[in-house]
């Protein structure tokens, strides 16, 4: 076969591969879905373009940042940090046993496994803010409600990740320890625990970062922290104060992010 023919044949093959009926169908289906979705959310570039002067106007009002509120922000920032720390510590105490019960290989019974798994899914499925809304109704305004909200969510999240870590434990060391005639408790302590603990600690650190981030906005539903001051300033159209508050928030989040990164590198 001469060279040209080979080339044309391979080209036609790749050509046929690229445009096949099933691919055209997938592309059309995708476009249709996105068309309906865009209509569903009232997606309109014109609205955005019409809003552009508004964006510039707001940007103008936001500058220069009002630095006088910095002093008032001190205690909300401390409170935000405290909410993040407290909720992570409490959640990490409960998350490990929960993960232990929700892992297929360590759970004592099938029914306990499904039950714990379901509870963890519900804890994790509802956002922190909505838990905050619930707890504000139940225990009243303030950072206590925020702590409870973050504790519930983080138990769900860390518990699920821990369960997955437990399920993917290397069976080799576990069997080796079991073969020495060790009790179940010893097998867990010397075979499973050392494998899981670095992962578990890194999840806890990750959720400390996450919880501090969420604590900054929990104030929107009245659950304490810096979010509340931001919400007040926004509803009074004090955009210069809003800028300062957002800057402080971003600095806080970045600082925690860096600190967690540093700690994680030390641990793992």
């Amino acid at each position, binding site marked *: 076969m001469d060279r040209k023919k080979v080339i044309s044949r391979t080209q036609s093959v790749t050509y046929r591969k690229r445009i096949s009926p099933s691919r055209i169908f997938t592309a059309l289906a995708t476009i249709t879905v*996105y068309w309906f*979705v*865009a209509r*569903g*959310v*009232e*997606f*309109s570039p014109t*609205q*955005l373009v*019409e*809003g552009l002067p*508004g*964006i510039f106007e*707001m940007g103008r009002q936001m500058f220069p940042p009002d630095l006088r509120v910095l002093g008032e922000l001190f205690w909300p920032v*401390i*409170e935000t*940090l*405290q*909410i993040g*720390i*407290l909720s992570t*510590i409490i959640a990490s105490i409960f998350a490990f046993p929960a993960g232990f019960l929700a892992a297929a290989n360590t759970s004592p019974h099938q029914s306990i496994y499904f039950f714990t798994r379901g509870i963890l*899914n*519900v804890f*994790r*499925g*509802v*956002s922190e*803010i*909505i838990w905050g*809304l*619930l*707890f504000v*109704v*139940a*225990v009243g305004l*303030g*950072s*206590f409600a*925020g*702590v*409870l909200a973050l504790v519930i969510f983080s138990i769900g999240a860390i518990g699920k990740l821990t369960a997955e870590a437990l399920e993917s434990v290397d069976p080799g060391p576990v069997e080796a320890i079991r073969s020495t005639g060790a009790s179940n408790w010893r097998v867990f302590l010397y075979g499973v625990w050392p494998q899981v603990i670095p992962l578990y600690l890194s999840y806890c650190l990750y959720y400390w970062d996450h919880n501090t*981030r*969420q604590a*900054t*906005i929990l104030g*929107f*539903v009245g659950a*304490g922290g810096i979010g509340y001051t*931001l919400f007040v300033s*926004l509803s009074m159209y004090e955009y210069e104060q809003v800028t300062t508050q*957002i800057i402080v*928030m*971003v600095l806080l*989040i*970045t600082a925690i*992010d860096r600190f967690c990164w540093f700690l994680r590198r030390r641990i793992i």
Partner: protein
Amino acid sequence: MTELQPKADSATRYIFKTKRKLRLNYALAFIAIAGVFLWASWGTGFNIPGLLSGTPLVYALICRMFPPDLEILSWLLKPTLETIEMALLGTTIPIFFALPLSFLAAANTGPHRVIIYSARALVTACRTVPELIWALLLVSVVGLGPFPGVLALTLHTTGSLGKLYYEAVEAVDPGVVEAIESTGANRFKVIWFGILPTCLPVMMSTTLWLWEYNNRAATILGLVGAGGLGLALTHAFQDFRYPEAITCLIIIVLIVTIVDRISAYLRGRVI
């Protein structure tokens, strides 16, 4: 035997020493955590009696929520669809922004140091502002409804995806890049044929992860008037219609669970 004795002794001593040191480290870490815990619980007013007195209140709230009000299901269809749609668009649109940004921000593909740093600064700025605050700002600019919600998710997700993408690009084996460069390919071709295929699975997996995240985030954007189930939920709470609130919560848990399953299935197919 007698010659070996001192050696063994020093080894045991060494082990005991490190063990003691380790124990000391654990003790110090424990004291530090306990101290921080006490400080934080003092600041937030957290205490065991408060927790115990709160339990009946939570229980009472749960009692008032049941049975769920299923009559509003037909009315909740639109907000539910809006939530899913916001999450879908809020994850798809950012891909088109985050992908170019990540190639500008990655150390191994960025054209110039200034561009690398400014792209990274842009990504970080988008990511560190929570989506609820983006939504709050955008609602006051483009008005109420799901559209500002999509924009808010787009901004925040562009930041998150951008960061995860450029980390994936930077983790690409330099051998791949060199192999393609040695054929005389330009920068664009190196990216298209070398880097993109290598980190595509990681990118897809992170995109799926953000899709899950955005479905959860889309349920709360309604709190600030940006559409979705959050709005219905807030109204139900404000008017003390708890049976309606629990219906909203059940739908939210269902959406999140189903999306988690779909995402896990797709991730299994991709990787």
